[in-house]
């Protein structure tokens, strides 16, 4: 099967040679696909639109030994609002960077694809004040998809359901007072635990119902990011961009 067709979302592009680009596509059936898009840096290229970052398109590809080649592409969703706003763009870059890390070549990625698609849609249409919450929901989803979802219902050691609890990154979830012992964990206020539990269940479209204070939001962000980085052993470069945008706003 030299030719194959696949839907996908463009996660990364790299310049190649005079006018080509290597495109990293997240596909539900094939996971991460690395393909060459020929001549796409020329203004008259018919493929240049579909290989823009975060475009969702239907691609026709030719299987190669190392890299595949994109022969045709039909746009499904361009996620235009992402390109018109810096905050949305930086948030999408964060989503894309994690997705690129977790996706494996030539492996099914149906759940990850759906998660990224839903997160990008939410980043397009959510109010600007809610973008951080969309990212938190994405982080929670990413942990589930990659098999590292934190235990938030009962103590990871004894199964105790009644708090107080601490959150232990290394133990993978909440730990009760009896089991705490020498476990290094951060104190978890009941309200934060309830919000983390809600965040795990709520669909992206209903994030607006969560009423979280700025301080609690920061606490949740720090906890989830520490957990993600510990489990996936990666610190996204786009975190710096998000901080940069935030500083620009505050100035």
């Amino acid at each position: 099967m030299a030719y194959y067709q696949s839907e996908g979302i463009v996660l990364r592009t790299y310049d190649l040679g005079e006018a080509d680009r290597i495109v990293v596509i997240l596909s539900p059936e094939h996971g991460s696909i690395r393909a060459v898009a020929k001549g796409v840096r020329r203004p008259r290229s018919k493929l240049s639109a579909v290989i823009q970052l975060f475009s969702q398109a239907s691609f026709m590809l030719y299987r190669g030994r190392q890299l595949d080649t994109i022969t045709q592409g039909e746009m499904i969703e361009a996620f235009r609002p992402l390109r018109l706003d810096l905050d949305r763009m930086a948030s999408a870059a964060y989503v894309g960077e994690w997705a690129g890390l977790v996706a494996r070549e030539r492996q099914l990625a149906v759940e990850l694809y759906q998660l990224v698609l839903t997160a990008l849609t939410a980043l397009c249409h959510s109010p600007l004040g809610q973008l951080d919450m969309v990212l938190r929901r994405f982080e929670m989803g990413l942990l589930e998809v990659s098999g590292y979802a934190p235990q938030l219902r009962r103590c990871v050691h004894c199964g105790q359901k009644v708090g107080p609890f601490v959150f232990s990154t290394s133990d993978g979830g909440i730990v009760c007072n009896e089991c705490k012992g020498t476990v290094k964990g951060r104190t978890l206020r009941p309200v934060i635990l309830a919000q983390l539990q809600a965040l795990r269940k709520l669909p992206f479209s209903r994030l607006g119902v969560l009423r979280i204070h700025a301080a609690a939001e920061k606490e949740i962000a720090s906890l989830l990011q520490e957990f993600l980085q510990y489990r996936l052993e990666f610190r996204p470069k786009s975190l710096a961009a998000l901080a940069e945008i935030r500083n620009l706003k505050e100035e």
Partner: protein
Amino acid sequence: MMYPGPVLRLMEELTKLPGVGPKTAQRLAFHLLKQETESIQQFAQALLAAKDRIRHCSICQNLTEDDPCRLCVSSERDQDIICVVEEPKDVVALERSSEYRGLYHVLHGAWSPMDGVGLETLRVKELLGRIKAGGVKEVIVATNADVEGEATAMYLARLLKPLGVAVTRLAHGLPMGSELDYAADDTIARALQGRHEI
């Protein structure tokens, strides 16, 4: 069979170039070895001279032999308008059009969160310095019409507008010779926004 030491070293150096893998390096190395000594000397001298004599203009950050560059010191250029581009090659492209008579500023990249390219990496501080020094009325953002270029443009607009300069963007639309059927939704939307009477 192992190649002699100097050939191996040449190949190693060639693989440091962008887009050159071991096979290409081998092909290039053998091509170079076939050349006359004089031709190789000229090649080596050109490399050394370029590295030795070319620097960044302290004003516009473009590549130049003289600092400031000839565009920055030219009395024929409009001093109150700066066109911001990503790379030195973009200055050449704009100059080819013979339409623009203002000054330039080269960022040496585009804002790219996933590659860790931010304000600190780009030559934005130097641009801010030029605008704060006064005399600039308009900044044209001529970064590429891709996602990174658009993000850079938005970034610069957010940064520069509070300084009281007009920040404009090159028009987007259908390229000459293109077919409407293949144009992106985004391109068609922008072409419609930028339509004009004929």
